């Protein structure tokens, strides 16, 4: 079965700083890749997804992620974070239909 690794447990940034959250997965075949966000007190929401085509995908709220197949990575980026981006971010991989695996999550704290 596939596994997902998120390198950073907790990231603290100041507003306007750039963000990159790492995500690596282990699976040799075709994968669908996702980033989910969980704002404080709210439920999980899909931020962006990749399943084919352009490896650079854009999501909501200015987030983007790049799929690098050779590195088995799907890092999340945002050029300038805002205080409202404070949340928990989860990378997920779905290699076989309906077998989604989540990373441990990265807590992002943005200081105003």
């Amino acid at each position, binding site marked *: 079965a596939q596994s997902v690794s998120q390198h950073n447990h907790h990231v603290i940034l100041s507003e306007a700083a750039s963000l990159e959250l790492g995500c690596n997965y282990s699976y040799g075949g075709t994968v*669908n890749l*996702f980033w*989910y966000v969980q704002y404080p007190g*709210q*439920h*999980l*929401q*899909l931020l962006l*997804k990749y*399943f084919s085509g352009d490896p650079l995908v854009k999501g909501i709220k200015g987030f983007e992620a790049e799929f690098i197949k050779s590195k088995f990575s799907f890092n999340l980026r945002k050029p300038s974070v805002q205080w409202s981006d404070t949340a928990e971010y*989860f990378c997920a991989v*779905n290699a076989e*239909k*309906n077998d*989604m*695996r*989540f*990373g*441990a*999550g990265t807590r992002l704290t943005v200081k105003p």
Partner: protein
Amino acid sequence: SAVISQKPSRDICQRGTSLTIQCQVDSQVTMMFWYRQQPGQSLTLIATANQGSEATYESGFVIDKFPISRPNLTFSTLTVSNMSPEDSSIYLCSVDGAVNEQFFGPGTRLTVL
């Protein structure tokens, strides 16, 4: 995307009792999933529920502890049986989307004393 509701949103239960969590979707879906999110941890899949068949459980989860019902295409329940403090967690249901993504309900926060 689907709109998913869960009841109850939170509960505090005594050791040894059972709690049934309901998940309602606003559209018919084939697959429904139940996850557990323990404090400070990621999501762990408990089981997958198809309408009209037995749920498929992941390693480490058994039907006697987490019985699941799926009576129709818009509804499912998860029961946490004979609870202990280790069962304190957030329980989430989700449904599959068009391209293998999943949409999540708001979760049920369970505290077992």
